[in-house]
C-alpha cells in the first residue's frame, strides 16, 4: 500500500545558491555603507552608490534576498519531508524561484536609481510591489497545494509557522503598499503623516515578526532536532508558544513611535504587547536550547550545532532587548541612536545569519549525497562570524549610549552641553570603524563558507529527485449527524476557510479604508498648515529620492533636550499633507523638522554642495549632482493632481498654474543665491530641495 514518490531537491539547491549569492551581495553593500559612515568618499563620488540610496538596498537585499531565499530553501526542503509529499507543482516552484530573483534584480536596479517609496524595508516602487504580491501568492498556492496532498495527517509545528508566515506577510504587504501611482516608477502613499507612520511600523515590526522570526522558528524546529538527532525538548511548548507568539506580535508595532505625535493610548498599546512578547519569544529560545540537553558533547565537535546555539542565543538576546527597548524610559534614550542598529544586527547576523549557515552546512552535503568538504573551515567560519558579531555589536552599543546621553546632557547653567550635533557624531566615529571591521570579519566567514560549499558540491552529485515512500492518508472524513451543519463542514475545510477569511479581511479593510481616502479625514487640525508649493513638493521628492530620511528625522520629541536643540516639538496636525511621512528612524545627522528659516539659502547650497565647508568633519557626502541636474517639471501637473486625489486641498485647476508658480519661487531662490555670489540656474534640483528644507516646520513657527 505504500506510495513511491520523489522529493524535489533541485529547487532546494537553487534557493540555496541564491541565498549564498545574495547574502554576499547584501553584506558587501552593508560593508560599503558602514565605511561611508566614517569615510564619505567611499561613495566613490557617485549618486548611485551614496549612503541614502544604497542603505535601503542593503536592508532589502539582506532581508528579502538573503533571508527570503533562505526561508524558501528551508521551507521547500522541510515541507516535502514533513508532509511526505513532493511540492504541489514543479512549475509553480520554478515560477516562484525565478520570479523572486527577478524582483530582487529589479530592486537592485531601481533603488540606486533613487526610485523609492521611502517606507523603510518596503522601499520598492509599486510595480515591484505588485510583482511581490503575485509571487507570494504563487508560493502560498504551492505550499497549500502540498499541504492538501500530504501523506502525513499531523502537521508538524514547523508547518504551522510557515502557514502563519504566508498569511500574515500577504496581509502586511498589501496594506502597506497601497499607493497612488503618478508614473511608472513614482507613487504616493494614500496615507499621510501620522497615519502613514502607523501603517509603516505596523508593517515594519510585523515584517520582523513574520519574515525574520516565524519562518526561522519553523526551520529551527525542523533542522535543530535533525542536527542534534534529538526530538525537540517539548513539543507541547512549541505548539503553545507558536499560538501565543502569532497572537501577540501583531500589536507591537507602535513601539517604534514612542514619544512621536502618535496618540499616547496607541503608544501604550504597543508597549503593553511588546512587553508580553517576551514570554512566547523565550519559549522558542528555551525550547531550542533545551533540545540540546544531553547532546552538548555534539555541540563541541559540530560547527553546525555551534551556529545553532549562538543563533538561538542571539535570538534570545534580541527578544529580551526588544521588550526593554519598548519601555518608554529606555526608548527615550535609545531611539534614533546606534543602539537600535546594534539590536537589529544581533538578530540579523546572529539569529538569521547563523541559522542560515547551519542549515546550508547540513543540507548541501545531503542533497549532494556527500560529506562536507571541510569541517575545519566551517569551524573557522563559526569563530570568525562570532567575532564579527561581537566587533559589530559592542562598539555600536557603546556608540548608542554615547549618542543618547550626549544629546540629552545639559550644563549646570541649563544649556545644552553639546549644542552642535556634529560634536556627538565625531565622538562615535572610532566605533563606526570598529563596526566596519566586524562586518568585514563576518563577510569573510561567509566567503569561506561559499568556498567550502562549492568544494562540497563538486565532490558530490545533486540528487535532483530523491526517492521516498510513505503510506497514503486514510480516506477523507465523511460528515455525519450534527457534523453536517454548515459551520461544522467549514471547520473541516481549512482551505475554503482560509479563502473565505481572506475575503472577509479584504472587504472589512476596504470598508474601513474608504473614509481615509476621502478629504474629510485630512482636514488639518492646525489651520496655518498649508499644502506644499509645487517647488517644495518637487524638492520633497528629490529629498525622498536621495534617501535623506535614512539619516535625518523630522520628528521632534517632547523632551527639553530636543525642543532646546531643534525647536517646538512636532504635532500630528503638521503632517497631514505628508505622503509619505518622513519621520526617519535614525539620526546620523540632526533633525530637520524645524530647519526652515534657520539658515540662509546660501548656507544650504554650500552645505549640500560640500558639507565640509559649513561643518568641518561632517560625514555627510557632497551632493554635487543636485546643482548640475535639471529639475524634472514635466511631472508637476500629475503630482498636483495625485495629491488632490489624496485629499490635499489644491484649488481646482491649480495644476495648470503650478509650473509658473514653481518657476517664480525657483527664480527668487536663485536670485537670493546670486546675491551671495552663488551662480546657479533656477531650474536645478538643488533649488527645489532648498525650497523644501526652508519650508520645514515654518507652518507653526511663531513669527
Amino acid at each position, binding site marked *: 500500500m505504500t506510495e513511491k514518490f520523489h522529493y524535489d531537491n533541485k529547487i532546494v539547491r537553487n534557493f540555496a545558491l541564491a541565498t549564498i549569492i545574495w547574502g554576499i551581495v547584501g553584506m558587501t553593500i552593508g560593508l560599503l555603507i558602514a565605511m561611508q559612515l566614517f569615510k564619505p568618499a567611499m561613495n566613490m563620488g557617485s549618486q548611485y552608490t551614496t549612503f541614502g540610496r544604497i542603505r535601503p538596498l542593503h536592508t532589502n537585499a539582506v532581508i528579502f534576498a538573503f533571508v527570503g531565499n533562505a526561508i524558501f530553501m528551508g521551507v521547500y526542503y522541510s515541507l516535502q*519531508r*514533513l508532509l511526505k509529499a513532493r511540492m504541489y507543482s514543479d512549475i509553480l516552484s520554478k515560477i516562484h524561484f525565478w520570479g523572486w530573483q527577478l524582483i530582487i534584480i529589479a530592486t537592485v536596479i531601481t533603488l540606486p536609481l533613487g526610485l523609492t517609496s521611502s517606507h523603510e524595508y518596503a522601499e520598492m516602487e509599486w510595480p515591484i510591489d505588485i510583482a511581490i504580491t503575485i509571487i507570494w501568492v504563487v508560493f502560498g498556492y504551492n505550499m497549500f497545494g502540498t499541504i492538501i496532498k500530504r501523506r502525513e*495527517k*499531523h*502537521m*508538524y*509545528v514547523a508547518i*504551522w509557522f510557515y*502557514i502563519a508566515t504566508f*498569511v500574515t506577510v500577504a*496581509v502586511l504587504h498589501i*496594506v502597506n503598499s497601497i499607493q497612488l501611482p503618478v508614473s511608472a516608477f513614482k507613487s504616493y502613499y494614500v496615507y499621510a503623516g*501620522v*497615519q*502613514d507612520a*502607523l*501603517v509603516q511600523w*505596523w508593517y515594519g515590526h510585523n515584517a520582523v515578526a513574520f519574515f525574520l522570526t516565524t519562518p526561522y522558528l519553523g526551520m529551527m524546529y*525542523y533542522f535543530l*532536532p*535533525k542536527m542534534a*538527532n534529538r*526530538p525537540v525538548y517539548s*513539543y*507541547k511548548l*512549541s505548539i503553545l508558544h507558536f*499560538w501565543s507568539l*502569532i*497572537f501577540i506580535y*501583531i500589536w507591537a*508595532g507602535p513601539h517604534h513611535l514612542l514619544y512621536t505625535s502618535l*496618540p499616547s493610548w496607541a503608544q501604550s498599546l504597543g508597549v503593553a504587547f511588546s512587553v508580553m512578547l517576551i514570554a512566547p519569544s523565550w519559549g522558542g529560545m528555551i525550547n531550542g536550547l533545551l533540545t540540546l540537553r544531553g547532546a552538548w558533547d555534539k555541540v563541541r565537535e*559540530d560547527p553546525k550545532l555551534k551556529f545553532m546555539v549562538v543563533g538561538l542565543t542571539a535570538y534570545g538576546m534580541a527578544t529580551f532587548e526588544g521588550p526593554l527597548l519598548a519601555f518608554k524610559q529606555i526608548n527615550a534614550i535609545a531611539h534614533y541612536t546606534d543602539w537600535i542598529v546594534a539590536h537589529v544586527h544581533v538578530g540579523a547576523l546572529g539569529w538569521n545569519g547563523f541559522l542560515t549557515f547551519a542549515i546550508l552546512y547540513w543540507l548541501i*552535503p*545531503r542533497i549532494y*549525497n*556527500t*560529506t562536507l*568538504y*571541510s*569541517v*575545519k573551515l566551517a569551524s573557522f567560519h563559526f569563530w570568525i562570524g562570532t567575532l564579527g558579531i561581537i566587533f559589530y555589536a559592542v562598539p555600536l552599543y557603546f556608540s548608542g549610549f554615547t549618542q543618547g546621553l550626549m544629546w540629552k546632557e545639559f550644563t549646570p547653567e541649563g544649556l545644552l552641553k553639546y549644542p552642535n550635533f556634529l560634536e556627538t557624531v565625531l565622538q562615535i566615529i572610532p566605533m563606526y570603524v570598529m563596526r566596519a571591521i566586524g562586518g568585514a570579519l563576518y563577510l569573510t566567514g561567509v566567503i569561506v563558507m561559499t568556498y567550502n560549499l562549492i568544494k562540497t558540491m563538486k*565532490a*558530490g*552529485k545533486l*540528487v535532483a529527485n530523491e526517492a*521516498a515512500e510513505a503510506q497514503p492518508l486514510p480516506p477523507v472524513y465523511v460528515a455525519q449527524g450534527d457534523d453536517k451543519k454548515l459551520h461544522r463542514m467549514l*471547520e*473541516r475545510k*481549512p482551505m475554503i*476557510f482560509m479563502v473565505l*477569511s481572506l475575503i*472577509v*479581511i479584504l472587504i*472589512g479593510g476596504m470598508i*474601513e*479604508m474608504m*473614509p*481615509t481616502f476621502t478629504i474629510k479625514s485630512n482636514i488639518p487640525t492646525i489651520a496655518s498648515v498649508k499644502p506644499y508649493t509645487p517647488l517644495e513638493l518637487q524638492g520633497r521628492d528629490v529629498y525622498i529620492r536621495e534617501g535623506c530620511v535614512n539619516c535625518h528625522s523630522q520628528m521632534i520629541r517632547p523632551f527639553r533636550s530636543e525642543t532646546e536643540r531643534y525647536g517646538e516639538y512636532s504635532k*500630528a496636525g503638521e503632517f497631514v499633507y505628508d505622503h509619505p511621512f518622513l519621520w526617519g528612524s535614525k539620526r546620523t545627522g540632526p533633525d530637520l523638522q524645524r530647519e526652515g528659516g534657520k539658515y540662509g539659502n546660501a548656507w544650504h547650497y554650500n552645505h549640500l554642495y560640500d558639507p565640509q565647508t559649513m561643518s568641518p568633519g561632517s560625514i555627510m557626502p557632497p551632493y554635487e549632482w543636485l546643482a548640475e541636474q535639471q529639475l524634472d517639471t514635466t511631472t508637476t501637473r500629475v503630482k498636483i493632481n495625485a495629491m488632490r486625489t489624496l485629499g490635499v486641498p489644491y484649488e481646482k485647476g491649480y495644476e495648470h498654474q503650478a509650473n509658473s508658480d514653481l518657476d517664480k519661487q525657483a527664480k527668487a531662490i536663485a536670485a537670493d543665491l546670486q546675491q551671495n555670489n552663488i551662480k546657479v540656474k533656477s531650474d536645478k534640483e538643488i533649488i527645489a530641495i532648498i525650497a523644501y528644507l526652508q519650508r520645514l516646520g515654518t507652518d507653526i513657527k511663531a513669527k
Partner: protein
Amino acid sequence: MNMIFMLIGFSILLALLFLLAFFWASKSGQHDDLFTPGVRVLFEEEEPQETGNEEKSDEDHSTR
C-alpha cells in the same frame, strides 16, 4: 487617527483567522498527540549512501 482603527481591524481579523486555524487544528486532531510528532521527524530514511564519494580532499570530513 482613522488608521489605527483600520489596523486594529486588520489585526483582529488576522487574529480571528489564527483563532479559527487553532480551532481547526484542535478539531482535526493536530493537538491530540503532542509527543510522537516531535520524535517522528527524526525517522526519515535519508542517510545518503556512501557511494562515489571516495575522492576525499580533506582529512577532517564529518562522519555524520
